[in-house]
C-alpha cells in the first residue's frame, strides 16, 4: 500500500495573470506522495512552494497538468485535505472550541449526535494540549497556542491529508521546537499523510520522510528530492550529532545556498 501514490501531481503548471502581466509561477511539477508519508516542500521565498500547496489544497486550480488525491481529481478544496494556515486563521469571534467545532460539525454533523461532536472537538483540543483553553477566544492566547488550535481544527476533521503552510514560521524558536515535537507525536499516532511547506532546513530534516527542494522562481520546479532515512521516533537532541542527520542537513543547505542561491530579491 505504501508504494501506491496517494497524491499525484502530473505536469502541473501555474501561470497567474496579474495587472502587470502574466507571472509564470510553477512549471513541470511532478510529484507523488504515498499514504502516510511526510513530505516537506522547501525553497527560497517566492519559489512557489505555497502555490504548490494551494494547488494540492484545491484553493487555486492549475493552469496546466493535473492533480489527483485518492484517485480523484482535485477540483475544489475539501475537508479531506485539511489546511493549517501560516497565520492560523482562527475566527476571532469564536472560542477555541467553537473554532474546532465548526470543522467537526461540517464533517461529522450528519452522522453523529451533538454530544459526540462536542466530544470530538474536545478530544482534538486535548490532542494538542489545549483543552484548558477551550472557552477562550483567540486573542486571549499566545501565538503558539493559536497555531495548536489551528492544527487541532485540521486534525479534528480526520483528513486524508494534512497540508501545513509554514505552520511554525511566525513562532519563536523554542515554541517552534516544542510544536514540531508534538506534531511528530501526533503524526505517529494518527498515521496522517502530510505535505508541509517550510523554509527551515532543520525542521524539514527532522520531520520529513522526503524533502522536495524547489528551484527559484519565476517558473520554479522541483530541483531535487531527498529521502530522509532516519529511524522514528526521532529525537532532536540525539540527532544533532548523528552523522546521517548532519549529512542530510548539508545536502539541503548545499542545494539551497550553493546551487540555487537566492539570485535577486526582486519578484
Amino acid at each position: 500500500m505504501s508504494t501506491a501514490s496517494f497524491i499525484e501531481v502530473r505536469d502541473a503548471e501555474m501561470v497567474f495573470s496579474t495587472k502587470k502581466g502574466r507571472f509564470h509561477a510553477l512549471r513541470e511539477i511532478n510529484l507523488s506522495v504515498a499514504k502516510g508519508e511526510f513530505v516537506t516542500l522547501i525553497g527560497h521565498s517566492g519559489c512557489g512552494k505555497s502555490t504548490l500547496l494551494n494547488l494540492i489544497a484545491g484553493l487555486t486550480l492549475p493552469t496546466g497538468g493535473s492533480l489527483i488525491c485518492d484517485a480523484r481529481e482535485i477540483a475544489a478544496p475539501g475537508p479531506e485535505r485539511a489546511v493549517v494556515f501560516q497565520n492560523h486563521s482562527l475566527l476571532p469571534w469564536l472560542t477555541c472550541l467553537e473554532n474546532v467545532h465548526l470543522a467537526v460539525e461540517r464533517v461529522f454533523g450528519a452522522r453523529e449526535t451533538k454530544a459526540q461532536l462536542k466530544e470530538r472537538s474536545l478530544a482534538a483540543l486535548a490532542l494538542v494540549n489545549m483543552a484548558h483553553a477551550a472557552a477562550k477566544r483567540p486573542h486571549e492566547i499566545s501565538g503558539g497556542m493559536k497555531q495548536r488550535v489551528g492544527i487541532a481544527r485540521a486534525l479534528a476533521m480526520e483528513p486524508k491529508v494534512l497540508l501545513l503552510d509554514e505552520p511554525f514560521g511566525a513562532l519563536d524558536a523554542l515554541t517552534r521546537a516544542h510544536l514540531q515535537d508534538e506534531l511528530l507525536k501526533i503524526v505517529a499516532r494518527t498515521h496522517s499523510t502530510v505535505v508541509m511547506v517550510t523554509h527551515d532546513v532543520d525542521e524539514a530534516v527532522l520531520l520529513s520522510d522526503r524533502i522536495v527542494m524547489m528551484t527559484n522562481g519565476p517558473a520554479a520546479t522541483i530541483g531535487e528530492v531527498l529521502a530522509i532515512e532516519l529511524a522514528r521516533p526521532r529525537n532532536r537532541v540525539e540527532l544533532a550529532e548523528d552523522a546521517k542527520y548532519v549529512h542530510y542537513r548539508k545536502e539541503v543547505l548545499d542545494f539551497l545556498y550553493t546551487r540555487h542561491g537566492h539570485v535577486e530579491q526582486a519578484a
Partner: protein
Amino acid sequence: MVSAVFHSPAGSGSEAPAPVAAKPVPAAPAPVLPKAPRRAFDWNALLLKVLPPVIGIALLVGVWALLTMKGGSFPTPAATFTEAVKVFSDPFYSKGPNDQGIGWNILFSLQRVAVGFGLAALVGIPAGFLIGRFSFLNHMASPLISLLRPVSPLAWLPIGLLVFKAANPAAIWTIFICSIWPMVINTAVGVQRVPADYLNVARVLNLSEWKVITRILFPAVLPYMLTGVRLSVGTAWLVIVAAEMLTGGVGIGFWVWDEWNNLNVTHILIAIFVIGIVGLLLEAALVAVAKRFTYEEV
C-alpha cells in the same frame, strides 16, 4: 449681577446633559476646596474627566447669558430653564392634535424615526451584503448610490407626498431614503474587507453558504454594519425635524415650527436642547451596542 446670572445657568446646564454629567454637580464644588487626595479613590482623575465638559457647558451658558443680559426677544438661560421646568412638569398632556405635551411630540418623532430607519435597515443591510458579495451588483449599484446619496432629504418629501398622499408616510419615506445609504455602503465595504484567510477557511471546511454567512461573513461585517447603523440613526434624527416642519402633525419638528408661529422662542430653545439630547442618547446607545459586538482583532 453677573455672578447671579452665572449661578442659575449652572443649574440649567447640568440639567441638560443629564445622561453624561449626572455626577458633575456634586463634584463641581471640589475645586473650591482642594483636599488632599485620598488613598482609596483617585479624585484627581475623576476631576480631570468631569471638569472639562462642565467648563464647556458653563462657557456656552455663560456666553448665552452675557449676550442676552440686555434683554430683547431672545430669552435668557434662566428664563429658558424656568420654562423648561414648566414644560417638563407635564410632558404628556393632550389638548387636541395641535397642542400636545413635549413627551408626546418626542415619542411621535421617535416612532417615525424607528419605522423609517427600521425599514431602511431591513432593506439596506441585505442590499449591502449583496452589493459587497457580487461585484456585478456593485458596479450596477455604485452609480445609483453616488447619484442619489447627496440629494437633500427634503427633496424627497414631495415624492413621498405624491406617492403616499399623506404626511406621515411621506415623512417616514424621507427618513427611509436618507438613512439607507450609510447602511448600504458600510455593509458593502465590510463584506469586501472580510479577510481572504477566513474565506479560505470556509472553502477548506467546505461550509454551506448559510454557515458562511452566519459564522464568517456576518460576524466579520458586524462592526462595519454597526458603524453604518450609527451614521444612519444620526441622519434619521436630523431629517425628522426638517420633515416634520413641513408635514405638520405631532412631532418635535412640528413643535418647533408651531412655537415659531407663536413667537415662543423659549420653547424653540428647549426643543433644540431636547433634540440634541435625544440624538446624543441614540448615538450613545448604538455605541454601546457596537462595543458589545466588536471582536478583538487577532
